């Protein structure tokens, strides 16, 4: 798409690349102030690791949002995926692969409910998924008996778990390099799907103009369903990453990732003048968020005012994103 933009003047260029420019500025400032610490390879890996989970959830949201859909319940569903994943592994002693498979299956089954509300009952995405947040939270906590799933804890029915310690392979998923590799693979797959496959283009066509897409013979319901299913897969991956990184599935462990994942998608919308949710943009958005967090922490900014700074920078990125939209 970028080739079309040859004639864009400077202002447009700045807006299109605002997120990237902000990212570069962050790097320059943090390097100037805390050069040695910030630019060390260890710290770079820290940033990548920290952004992985946000990115994976963001990618999931990107796919749904490419169809002009929305999924507010993405991260509450991810918590359920995490509960299932850890409980299968610890409580029932399933192998790591089997735990992942079962978690994925349960997530996909639960996601059918989302699709049912949106496609069959025709409830607007936002409202349907807002209601489902509570359903996911309640169902998930009922399953785990209200407490965390971690080593040394009994099952809700009082039985002893089959496994008492986490294997190395379990923990490796949440550490670098694996967590970073998984993130990059997710971004790559989503990028290939959205930009280079038929169904990916259908999603953007549908997101751009649902009626025109429908009258071009695109099956819009099927396309929306497919987007939902793909999102569910990324949701599961995100849930597994959270569990592995935290060595347990805490109650509502993924819920808090939603807002920043959403922010990553919105910041990424404008990257390169795409003006729609896109995989690479989401990666950059997530990177901006976690770089800021990391740099500010190194600069010994108190952790309790971090959200305000983070929020302010996000606002700036969003202003750029929507200012460019308005001009058209």
């Amino acid at each position, binding site marked *: 798409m970028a080739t079309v933009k040859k004639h864009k003047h400077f202002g447009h260029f700045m807006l299109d690349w605002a997120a990237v420019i902000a990212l570069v500025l962050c790097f320059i400032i943090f390097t100037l102030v805390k050069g040695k610490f910030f630019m060390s390879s260890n710290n770079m890996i820290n940033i990548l690791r920290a952004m992985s989970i946000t990115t994976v959830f963001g990618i999931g949201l990107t796919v749904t949002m490419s169809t002009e859909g929305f999924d507010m319940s993405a991260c509450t569903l991810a918590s359920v995926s995490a509960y299932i994943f850890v409980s299968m592994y610890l409580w029932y002693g399933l192998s790591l692969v089997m735990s992942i498979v079962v978690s994925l299956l349960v997530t996909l089954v639960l996601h059918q409910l989302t699709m049912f509300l949106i496609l069959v009952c025709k409830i607007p995405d936002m409202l349907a998924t807002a209601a489902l947040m509570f359903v996911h939270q309640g169902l998930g906590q009922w399953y785990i008996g209200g407490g965390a799933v971690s080593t040394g804890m009994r099952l809700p029915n009082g039985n002893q778990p089959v496994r008492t310690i986490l294997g190395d392979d379990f923990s490796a998923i949440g550490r670098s390099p694996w967590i970073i590799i998984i993130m990059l693979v997710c971004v790559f797959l989503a990028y290939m799907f959205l930009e280079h496959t038929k169904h990916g283009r259908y999603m953007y066509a549908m997101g*751009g103009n649902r009626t025109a897409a429908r*009258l071009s*013979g695109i099956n819009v319901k099927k396309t929306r369903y497919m987007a939902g299913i793909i999102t569910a897969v990324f949701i599961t991956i995100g849930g597994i990453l959270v569990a592995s990184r935290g060595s347990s599935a805490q109650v509502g462990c993924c819920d808090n990732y939603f807002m920043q994942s959403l922010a990553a998608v919105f910041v990424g919308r404008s990257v390169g003048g795409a003006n729609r949710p896109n995989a690479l943009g989401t990666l950059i958005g997530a990177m901006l968020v976690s770089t800021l967090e990391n740099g500010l922490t190194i600069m010994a900014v108190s952790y309790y005012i971090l959200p305000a700074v983070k929020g302010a920078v996000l606002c700036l990125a969003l202003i750029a994103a929507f200012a460019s939209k308005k001009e058209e």
Partner: protein
Amino acid sequence: MNKITLGTRKVTMQFPGVIALSDVDFEVSTGEIRAVVGANGAGKSTLMKVFAGANPGYTGDVLLNGEVVEIRSPLAAKKLGIQIVYQEVDVALVPTLSVGENVMLNDMVMHKGSPMVNWRKLHTDAKEVLDRLNIKLNTRVLVKDLPLAQKQMVLIARAIQSQCNFLILDEPTAPLSNTETEDLFNLVTHLKETENIAIIFISHRINEIIQICDNYTVMRNGQIVDTSPITENTTSQEIVEKMLGRTFEAFIPKEKVEIGDKLFEVKNLSGADGKVNNVSFYVRRGEIVGIAGLVGAGKSELCKTIFGAYKKTDGEILLNGESIKVENPSKAVAHNIALVPEERRKEGVLVEEDVAFNLSAANLGDFCTFNFLNRKKINENAESFVKELRIVTPSIRQSVKNLSGGNQQKVAVGKWLAADCKLYMFDEPTKGVDVGAKQEIFRLINDITKQGNGVVYASCENSEILSITDRIYVMFDGEIMAELVTADATEDIIMNYAVGNKAEKA
């Protein structure tokens, strides 16, 4: 009651590239019901919008009682006592508020005063207005629960509630049933008798006009060609002739194509929420079939029902003699049926996407290797169509939103040519395109039939239908009124059926 007159002196209205009104002199006075008639694009709505303050760019004078007044905003029009009820009643009503609030809405907005709403007064005031008009409606009912005809009544009540000497009704009867139309006529006659008011009535239904109007004004090509009283001797034939005039548009030659056997047929098709009613017709190979009729006759709805975009309630669709099921557009495409819809920008093209993607959108699967897009194939396809259809674009990567209307339309057609369809339906394909692009679209349509494909051409431009089609079906109110062979048809004949006269079965 003192008579008040409203008129224009040499009013001209220009839009980019079009003169919608030229030197119009018009006058109407209270106590009369005036019909304004004309073919589509004659300038009726443009003139009414001048009165309503919705066309602030007019030149010339608007006269109230012979004095020049400026109507440059809807508010100015309302202050002069000019009220308009547009055809799309839903845009003017707040569905979630009650009838009373909707009737009194102008009053609430215009009169500053206490910030508190006096509910009892609001409802009694509203009731009073409705009683004055003999409308029996509960003021506490929500507007969204009303049928369309009553929504219209609410709007008329709102207009009357404010100062109103001139009430413009823009095609009020188009969506109404017969009994609803009767109710509306009673209301209009009642208004004329009891209020100091002139009613300007726009309608395509000539018979209605003869029934209730006192005088009629005929417009054609942005000019007023005649104003006459309606007498017992006035015939619809006479009015239709004046509407059409004797001038015809530039003739576009139709090429001779051999017509084969039946390709496509619909039998007793009904659907689109009752806007398509028991329609049967067929298309043969190499044939161009015209669907004629006025705006709102159900032509678009018919095309979209066939295409699966609107729900079909009854009837059968046959392709090559076999019954096919078309539940949604995606099924229609699978059966090689194409639709070039009327609302090009909203429905026909994906404006945010580039030319190359648009030209492959209908059959993207053919440009893929294992579901992955093959850019080379897509670009080659786009290049060849851009050349063949003479689409003017700086590059195939240009977003379609930056192309002109005619070129967008070519993209909308090209998309289906790439998909190699059997039946092509065109819904008002020449709307908003210039003469040059029009000719090219006709050339395209001729080419389609040369390959033995069928074409359905729906348009309210009768001259176009006459010059390009082989046979014509005329629609009115969702039904087919007549089937004509183009060689024997004239604009008069089409118009006669289009205003609701049914052909006698031979």
